């Protein structure tokens, strides 16, 4: 019997959707019927997450009471380390998020566990655990194995694993947090971008505009189009800098990474490295640009060399019909 340990992630007392995706990934790693998926949640109000985490595929739910409401790298590292010692899991799954980046590498390094980040496929190949992640700036897929490692820690990319349907009644246990001295403290929570606007990191369909839009009035046409198509309108940095769309809609290095996006339609965006940093992972990118040499075409699944206004007109005609 082996154990797969999942560390749930929450922010401001809300469970992050990726936690449920990790459970789905863990379920796929069960080799035997008696293998267990154990989910741990760390925080000051862990009980509040019990209903949301009592989902299909979870065998045990561990609640770790911690003196902090939000993430703290020292506390999380100590807690997960103690859990691994106690439960001896073969695989530990963490979300590939800014939280995990704060402690996963040190956790694995200190104890000599196998380690892989930003994993989007994890499976057993003839009894060998193999993780697949991007390499060379996502240009190639790299398979990583972990010879001789009894425990492997992985951070899993969000929006890759489909959440399992159905509820369950897992065993609920409490686990004592080991003594730990935190070196940091949360002073304030700052939500990047407009607080009341849509969170573009969670939406699946994005239309995004760049410099090709020309002038502010034209933005409205594309807002209309996005609304009709059921997309969220986002933009590259110059558009947000000009005040034509809110900062919360800005994609890229200066803006946000659209982690959950499945379809990204880039309209009049040349594709600077800074912009692509926020969206190049999206499985389906459609790029529309009059310049066939625009960098955006190097990462697009579908490239259309055309005027974005012709495209807008055509899409509007199709949607209106």
């Amino acid at each position: 019997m082996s154990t797969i340990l999942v560390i749930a992630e929450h922010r401001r007392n809300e469970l992050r959707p990726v936690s449920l995706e990790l459970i789905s990934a863990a379920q796929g790693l069960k080799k035997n019927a008696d293998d267990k998926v154990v989910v741990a949640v760390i925080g000051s109000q862990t009980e509040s997450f019990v209903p949301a985490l009592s989902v299909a595929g979870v065998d045990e739910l561990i609640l770790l009471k911690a003196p902090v409401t939000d993430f703290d790298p020292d506390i999380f590292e100590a807690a997960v380390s103690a859990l691994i010692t106690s439960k001896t899991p073969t695989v530990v799954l963490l979300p590939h998020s800014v939280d995990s980046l704060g402690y996963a590498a040190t956790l694995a390094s200190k104890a000599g566990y196998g380690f892989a980040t930003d994993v989007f496929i994890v499976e057993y190949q003839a009894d060998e655990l193999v993780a697949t992640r991007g390499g060379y700036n996502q240009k190639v897929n790299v398979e990583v194995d972990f010879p001789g490692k009894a425990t492997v820690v992985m951070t899993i990319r969000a929006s890759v694993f489909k959440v399992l349907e159905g509820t369950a009644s897992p065993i609920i246990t409490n686990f004592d947090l080991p003594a730990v001295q935190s070196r940091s403290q949360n002073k304030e929570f700052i939500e990047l971008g407009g607080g009341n606007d849509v969170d573009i990191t969670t939406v699946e369909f994005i239309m995004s505009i760049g410099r090709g839009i020309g002038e502010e009035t034209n933005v409205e046409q594309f807002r209309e189009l996005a609304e009709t198509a059921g997309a969220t309108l986002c933009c590259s940095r110059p558009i947000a800098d000009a005040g034509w769309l809110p900062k919360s809609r800005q994609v890229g290095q200066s803006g946000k990474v659209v982690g959950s996006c499945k379809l990204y339609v880039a309209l009049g965006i040349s594709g600077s490295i800074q912009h692509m940093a926020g969206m190049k992972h999206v499985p389906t990118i459609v790029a529309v640009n009059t310049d066939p040499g625009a960098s955006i075409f190097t990462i697009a699944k579908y490239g259309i060399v055309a005027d974005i206004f012709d495209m807008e007109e055509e899409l509007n005609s199709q949607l209106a019909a």
Partner: protein
Amino acid sequence: MFALNSDKDLVDKAIKNGDIYAAAAVYSIAKCEQREVLEGIMFAKRRDALALARWEHTPAEVLNALSIKNNSDVGIVLRLDKNQNTPALAISTLYGLENGQVKRNTSFTVLIAQHRHTPINVLEAIVKFVDDIEVLKAVSKNPVANAQVLGLLLNRVAHSSVYEAVAKNVAANPSASADLLSAIYSYADYSQADDCQAGSSLRVAVLKHENCPQFLIRLAEFNVADAAIEIQRQLVKDSRLSLQALASLVASQDKVLRTGLAANLAAPKMLIKQLLKDESPLVRRAVAARADLTVSSIKYLISDKDHWVRQWLARNPAVSRKVLEKLSADPHADVRRAVARNSRCTNALLSELAKDEDAWVRAAVAYQKNATKRLLEALAEDADIDVLSGVANNPHTPQRILLKLISSLEADIRRGVILNRKAQRKTLLSLLEDSYYLHRLMLVNSTVLKDSDKWPLCDDPDFQVRFTAYQYFAKKYQTFTKNI
């Protein structure tokens, strides 16, 4: 310490630095013997040469040198082909004519056929000698190709199965002449019996072209009532269409067509009055955006149930201040924002909108070029990032407010100050050490900072900042040399 006496000093500094990006930035001002040293720095390692061949900011002179020195390296040639900065001279070096033939005929040729710097004689040679259909299609889409090359191309593919595809691209190419467009239109008419859809799409492409001759519009409108819907939709947007033809289309069942008519500036008031009450909000939105709206039309649209209609009205520079005042109380925030963005919005109205409950409306005021100092001072107390970015951006914002904003934790707000064209030197100085590289990079081209302020950026930890700083000083020396 800023102590350069000549362009040679700058190049020497770049050589001493040994950084490929600094070397690339000063290459154009270097003397012959210095250029050799710089080439040694830039091209000695293949990895560096590949990076420069691909980088979107590599100066044309460096790309040109790469095309001469490394033209047998397939990897470098491929990157040069893809780089939109590659100059015509480099393309000629790689693909020019040799004994009446194109030097290379590889799969890369498609990249050259679509490149915006490809010399016309190379495009002509490609059309004459290259057989690859994808390459020919790429030429047909390239706006650099002139009418003569496009004509040659159409002749080359005449009677072949790809004629239609090439002709459609040519019809969309801004270089297509009226003669070429007429020829394509005739072909479309002729081929209509074979493939109605293809014929229609070809004719739409021709009718859409700004060089489309008047007689083709007249020819098309002759049968407008029976034409395919795509053709009708295109014609109805054309300001050259006769009033009679426009009137015959106003009762069309197609709302896209009626929307096109509502946006046509040549549409007479009578028709617009009719479209004002159209059942489709798409049509009414197009009417609301018209610059020639009458008072009675505005009065009708002001209470339209579709918020987009009211929003387009609020953006319309033709509406009166009184109308804007009414729209500023609209329940929909986007409408109120549109009022704040309207250039006719009064200060009194802006003051009201600056207190709006929606931050995006207040941000519109903060970005408004008519906003007063007093209003901006009040908005500077706002907590919203978009509002503060607007204040930081606004040229009317007092310097003391800008000085306060540069210490914001939000990079977007600090960048707003950098983008402010009235930001003074003393305001920008501390941003030269901003933690975000993009901000330091943007300051290289600031017109208020002194050269001595910018000089340390030549040793910036970020390669893009170093490159931009070296390039800035290189251009200064270049301009200075030209002037003397």
